[in-house]
């Protein structure tokens, strides 16, 4: 059995956070959550947790999703990033500029996000530990 894929999900809307968390947990993922970019960055910098994929909202207080993506791409270039936004084109364009791997517009279909995760992580590679 492969190790479960480890996700860090970041959104300042707690309903979205718990929905995502429940969904991905039920699909066998290992999920950690953060309520803004600052909390997420602290989690990442503690290094206690390693993650395979970051799923982040863009418009958030303290450190925005765009800020988080820029920092993560510099400090943890291997971490795959899926950005989601409900605020129209501009934050999405900035997320692409910050080199998010995928940018999705809300409302997003959870199954579609899962497809993106699998494609990004090329799960067949991950399964080499089997």
């Amino acid at each position: 059995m492969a190790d479960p894929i480890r996700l860090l999900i970041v959104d300042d809307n707690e309903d979205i956070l718990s929905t995502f968390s429940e969904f991905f947990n039920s699909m066998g993922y290992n999920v950690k959550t953060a309520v803004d970019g600052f909390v997420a960055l602290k989690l990442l910098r503690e290094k206690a947790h390693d993650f395979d994929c970051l799923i982040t909202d863009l418009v958030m207080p303290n450190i925005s999703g765009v800020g988080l993506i820029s920092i993560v791409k510099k400090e943890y270039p291997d971490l795959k990033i899926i950005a989601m936004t409900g605020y129209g084109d501009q934050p999405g364009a900035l997320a692409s500029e910050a080199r998010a791997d995928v940018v999705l517009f809300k409302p997003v279909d959870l199954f579609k996000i899962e497809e993106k995760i699998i494609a990004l992580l090329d799960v067949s590679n991950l399964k080499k530990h089997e």
Partner: protein
Amino acid sequence: MTTPLIGVSKSLLKIKELINHVANTCLNVLITGETGVGKEVVAQNLYEESPRTEHNFVKINCAALPETLLESELYGYEKGAFTGAHKKRPGKFQSAHKGVLFLDEIGDMPLSLQSKMLHVLQSGEFSPLGSDQDFKTDVWVIAATNHDLEKRIKQKQFREDLFYRLNIIKIDIPPLRERTEDIPLLVEYYFKLYKSEYPNNPGSKPDEDTMVRLCNYPWPGNVRQLQNCIKKQMVINSWDKVFDEMPAEDSHAIVPDISAHDSVKKGETRNLHPDFANDRISLISEFVDLSTSSEKLLQEISLKKIKKKASDRVEKEVITFVLEKVGWNRSRAAKILKVSYKTLLYKMSEFDINPPSK
């Protein structure tokens, strides 16, 4: 020397922690908070903890300069770029190269300059006035405002795309009345500082009762007002007198949301409720396009034109209202409105008033 961030409140500790985590990233920062909370102090602390301290911290106040001067200050100019440009002058973007450019009062930047600023932030390039050469610039932009920028975006006074580009890291500093536990430490710090600057001044530290009073006061002018009170106390050495001269203790009830409106800080409408000021802006914006540059705006404002637009709008609404009441019977409507039938028909066609199609 950079002023340290003083306080033990949860919000202040969080700001210090945030600075600590982002100062090395040099991502654009937007600092918000009421007048006098210490936005510049936060900007300087970011700079001090960044890898850019070998280079300059350059500050420009976007509210203090007229539009054309602000533009030449920011980008510099070539000799002969405009009347009076006798020699070439570098702008703040050049002086801040590899350092920090602190754009204070960004919410007051005229719209025309906002688009140029956006372009520079996107491309990292700018050209001085009168020059056809583009310069590459590497500045860390830290912007601050006491406006609610999202409100200004709705009023079409601030560009949404510029807002998102600046708002990568957002540091919001709460007003002093929401973090009263910081007051004793601030009093201690500034008392010591001013005492060391003016050792012969008589001032005395507040006793326990005075400290309670200081902590209960709402501080509409925030830390800056507190600093001024301490300075004053050092000279007159009477806390009672200092309190007597302070604005009424409930003054924050009159100005509950300084951050949301423009004129209070400039002292123009001190006792005007912010909603009135906002209502005024939104009313004016219905008849004048406030999104044009201030120069163009001044050319376009004309009381006569505005009067015509405003009266046309009200007339149109009244005529439609009466026509609806009388089931679109135009002769009855003309009688009620006390105008001739012909005038009514003329007005209806001028204002494009049509009965609802069935």
